[in-house]
Every structure is written in C-alpha cells, then in structure tokens.
C-alpha cells in the first residue's frame, strides 16, 4: 500500500512569490526572514522524498461558481493548468502546469464515495493560488504529479468544521489503502484569522492574534477535540470574515490524526495575517 510520507498544513499567502523574488528597493523588509522560514519548511517536504502530492485547497471563484457549487471536489486529469489572470494581475503569480495522477484521483473518488463523501469531480480543472502557493513554497520545481482536492470554505452554506476533520481522516485512510508503492505527501492550505473586504483588513497583524495563537496550539498539538469544541461556522465570523478558511487546517488535523504532534511548527507574524507552517511524519522523521 502507499505510504503517507508527510502531512503538511500551511497558510497560502499570495504575496510570497512577489516578496521572495523582489530585489533592491522593491524587496519588502520582511522578505528575508520569510524566505528563510519557507526554505526550512520546504526541507521538511524534500526529506520525505514524496512521489505524489495530494493538494487540498479552495477555489477562489475562478472555475467554481455559484450556479453550480460543489462542497468537495477532486481533480482527476492528466494535467492541471494553474493560476488565473486576476492572480497574475494582483499578485504577479506565474502561469504553471502540473501533472496529475489519475490513478490516485480515481482511487480517492471511488472509495471516497463509498466511504460516505459524495465527492464532485472535474476532468478539466485549472487550479488557483490555494494550491500553487504551496507548490511555490514547498516544491518550486513543480516536478511531482498532484491530486487536487477543493473544499468550499468560501460560498455559504458551508459544510461544518467536523465534516472537514472527517474528510481529512478519510483522505488519510484512502491514501493508505491505495495499492501502490508510492510515497504520497498530503498538503493542505488554509488561513488563520483573516479579513478580506471588511473593516479589519490589512491591519498591522492578523485581525485576531489571540485566535491565531490558539489555532497554532491546536494544530501543533493535534488537539482536534479542543479545536472542535470551540470552532463552529458561527464562531469563525468573530476572528475575521474570511476565517472559514481555517477549516482546511482542521481538515489537515484530521489527516494528521487526533493527538498527533507536528514535527515542524513555525509561524510568521506579518501585517494583514499570520503565516503558519506545520509538518507531520506519520511514519517517523526521515533520516
């Protein structure tokens, strides 16, 4: 059966690409520290020697729209073009193309349906920065096939937090039941407290540093029960109006497993939002 080589949860900050590649007067003062943290984070994936990446993210009204909105969707295609005109425009993100792994995607779809998740699928999916940001930070050569999984954290009504945790647990089981000798890393990105388009946006820190502190604790300690006892669809409005993206972190806690302490934990307090990076090695820290 396939091996889960690493489980990785991260924020996906679309400003990283521009900040990390800027030079001279254009380079922001926080860029060097940010790059150093990302390079350390990248090493946690590199040393897991993955063959395939399962990538959990969320479409930002690019291909998925309100006339036909899936809650959870698996991309099953030989290739995925990536990034969109408005991401190029606002963030300077490059166009990319990633290979897909249709075998693993098909396995996740078939067995996910049988496990009680009515997963939507797409055979022609152009992915956005929720998936390309972690490619840029963690695997900039973009040389591994992926299976993208999109969640709806964006267009209510949303699934409840517990459902994200359950989907994470199921994804872990599905990868581990895949008859293959491949090493699979499961990577998901979301947000800590975040406000977009509201009065608390673009402050000196994230909109709710206390929520961020607690969130990092929950994730780092694998405290699924503690997190679920405090986080609801209603409560997520309090830390910031885009904080429902935290549910993708909760999904990744489900992948890592209750009580699983992260092997790598890091964060960076930026203006506007806090960055956070976590890696677990379910089968032991690689040499």
């Amino acid at each position: 059966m396939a091996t889960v080589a690493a489980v990785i949860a991260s924020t996906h900050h679309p400003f990283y690409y521009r900040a990390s590649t800027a030079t001279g007067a254009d380079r922001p003062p926080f860029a060097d520290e940010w790059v150093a943290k990302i390079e350390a984070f990248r090493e946690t994936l590199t040393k897991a020697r993955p063959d395939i990446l399962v990538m959990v993210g969320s479409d930002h009204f690019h291909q998925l729209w309100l006339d036909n909105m899936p809650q959870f969707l698996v991309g099953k295609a030989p290739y995925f073009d990536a990034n969109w005109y408005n991401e190029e425009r606002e963030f300077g993100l490059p166009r990319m193309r990633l290979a897909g792994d249709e075998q693993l995607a098909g396995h996740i779809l078939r067995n996910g349906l049988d496990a009680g998740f009515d997963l939507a699928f797409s055979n022609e999916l152009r992915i956005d920065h929720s998936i390309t940001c972690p490619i840029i930070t963690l695997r900039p050569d973009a040389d591994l096939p992926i299976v993208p999984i999109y969640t709806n954290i964006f267009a209510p009504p949303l699934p409840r937090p517990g459902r994200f945790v359950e989907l994470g647990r199921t994804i872990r089981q599905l990868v581990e039941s895949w008859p293959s000798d491949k090493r699979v890393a499961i990577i998901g990105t979301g947000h800590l407290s975040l406000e977009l388009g509201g009065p608390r946006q673009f402050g000196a820190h994230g909109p709710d540093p206390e929520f961020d502190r607690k969130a990092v604790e929950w994730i780092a300690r694998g405290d699924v029960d503690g997190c679920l006892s405090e986080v609801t669809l209603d409560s997520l409005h309090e830390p910031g109006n885009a904080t429902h993206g935290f549910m993708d972190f909760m999904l990744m806690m489900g992948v890592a497993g209750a009580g699983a302490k992260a092997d790598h934990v890091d964060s960076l307090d930026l203006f506007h939002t806090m960055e956070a990076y976590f890696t677990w090695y379910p089968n032991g820290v690689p040499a």
Partner: protein
Amino acid sequence: MSKYLLNKFLYTIDRDPELVERYREDAAGTVSWWEQELANEILNCHTGERSTWLSFTDEERRALREHDHVALFGLGAHPFLTLTLFIAMFERDHGPLEYQKAYGRALQHLSLPYPDIAT
C-alpha cells in the same frame, strides 16, 4: 434583492480585463449594458440559452453605478469579489497598500455580525 446577481456582476467583470477597464471608466454605462446583455446569461452552459428573471434592485444598481463598495458590503455582496475587483480598478491610483487600507477604513463604522453573504 439578489446577492447572487451582484456577485455575478462582480465575478464576470473581474475576470475580463477589458470589462475591468470599462467598469472603471464608465460605471453607469457598464452596469446598464451588463444588466441588459449579461445578467441572464447562464455561465458555463450552452450558448444561446438564457435565464428570464434576473435583474438588480434600484439600490443594487445604484451601488454598482457609483462604485460604492461600502453599500455593496451592506447588501451582502461577497467581500472577496468586491475587494478583488476594486483593487484591480483603483489600486493603481495609490501608493502601496494605501487603497486597501482606505477601503477598510471606509467600513470602520460596521461591527459584527456583518451582513449575511449566503446566496
């Protein structure tokens, strides 16, 4: 009230570079044209088939015609769509992050709970 239609306007303008410029330069004309020609176009579907029932309320139309992002927030338009499109139109007229910060300040009078964005 149609939060969906507001969002559909923001979404279809934002993804087309020519329409972004057109809406920036001629908001009222673009809204009128869009409501007439595109409001009932079913996206990602057979061409030629249209819906028959979508139109803005007066307040929605006014907010779009006046680039009034505060009113759009109050009407429950999706804040990500509004922010993304307005950054595309107006960030260029300001220094780094100035526009984003002013955009937030214009909403400072609001407190939780924010208007419901469910469609």
